[in-house]
């Protein structure tokens, strides 16, 4: 988990992120990094495509499920564990990608959970 600095740096300054405006190649790399960071958060078991697989980023030759980066909003759909309350998990994801998201809102959707046992 990457702690969010109080004032996020401009998105372009972060390694791995491309141009800040969310053009195709830049947002693709950005989405990939966001996905990795979200997966690294406590309480996140995986990323989810959302209902009907709508939350996804299309990269040349591949499809990144679970993160959709737009001009004004970033959507991240996760599969969570029950280790901690879901709002906390969502906040952790938001903090983890805050520097990449910059001015954009980060909407986190808990799409499913993993329950231990049967």
């Amino acid at each position: 988990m990457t702690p969010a600095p109080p004032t996020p740096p401009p998105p372009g300054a972060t390694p791995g992120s491309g141009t800040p405006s969310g053009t195709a190649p830049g947002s693709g790399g950005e989405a990939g990094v966001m996905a990795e960071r979200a997966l690294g958060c406590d309480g996140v078991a995986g990323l989810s495509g959302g209902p009907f697989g709508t939350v996804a980023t299309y990269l040349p030759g591949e499809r990144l499920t679970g993160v959709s980066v737009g001009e004004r909003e970033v959507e991240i759909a996760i599969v969570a564990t029950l280790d901690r309350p879901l709002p906390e998990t969502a906040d952790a994801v938001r903090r983890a990608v805050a520097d990449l998201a910059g001015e954009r809102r980060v909407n986190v959707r808990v799409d499913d959970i993993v329950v231990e046992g049967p």
Partner: protein
Amino acid sequence: MTATGVTVPAQRPAPLPAPERRGRTEVADRVVTKIACCAAREVPEVREVHQRARPWARASDCEVHGGRATVRLNVSVAYPAPLHAVAARLREHVIRRVAYQTGVEVSRLDITMTDLGGDLP
């Protein structure tokens, strides 16, 4: 089970960026249903929670709208247990667990005791 989401009010704003940049947290119906079923299983008199539909019974399900949820649970209860008391305990426990785990307020919890039997724990 559609994944209509819900806006969860901000709970720990301190280390986060300004609230207007935070974005929504949505919790899918399926998630609330699973957590409610898990919570219901923790009530001692509840012997089974029917999460999936069966030919003779509807599935337990849930609808989340704007931070509030309506939950429907189908359960098997031990007999003879005082059913009113079991229902009250079940309602209280599920509402508290769902609120804690998801931040969603369960405004209505309908319980159907589909079958009774088996000894008290």
